[in-house]
């Protein structure tokens, strides 16, 4: 996951590498995603999020749709 100056820079990066465009989010969304994902990582009783917990986190951050689908 990379940071870009703006959407135009994302488009150019994808074109240069002949990659399909993925999905973009705001830094605020990325922060909320990172906070939800990592805030407990240092705790001894930490465990991986379940599929359902991850889906809920993505939805809470506003990341919905096929790109964010975690299931087959």
């Amino acid at each position, binding site marked *: 996951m990379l940071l870009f100056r703006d959407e135009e820079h994302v488009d*150019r990066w994808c074109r240069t590498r002949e990659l399909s465009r993925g999905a*973009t989010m705001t*830094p605020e969304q*990325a922060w909320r995603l990172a906070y939800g994902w*990592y805030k407990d*990582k240092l705790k*001894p009783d930490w465990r991986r999020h379940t599929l359902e917990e991850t889906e809920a986190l993505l939805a809470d951050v506003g990341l919905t749709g096929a*790109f964010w689908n975690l299931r087959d």
Partner: protein
Amino acid sequence: MTTSHADLDALARDVRVYVFQQAAATGRVPQAPEISGALGRAEPDVRAALHHLAVGKVLILASNDGDIWAANPFCALPSGFRVDAAGRRYWGICIWDALGVAAAVDSDAVISAPCGDCGDQMTLEVRHRALVRADGVVHFAVPAHHWWDNIGFT
């Protein structure tokens, strides 16, 4: 040597806690010899525990030597994603992990990262668990279902 799944699970837990707490406390991700010394366990057992953690997607091992590449969100090597937080310098393997360092250490943080296209440095800042300085846009190249197909590229 570790002889049972229960032993391996228990050691993996101890290794996990040590690795992540050391990374947070020092900014440096410990490797197998240091972990072995700290926990008083044989290095092959520690490496088995690290492999177990990698299989569980708790951390990522380098493909060449089996050392820890990233105990996410902490990158073991300097990268383009620099985090200054709690008086220490950390690194992330991507912008998500760089922000994740601030979350994991629960500290104000200044994050410096290059534009993936032009390389210009950009700065994000976290204060009191809120993003107070934002710049740019974050791009995920890989759909969520395939993140772990090639986590290095993701």
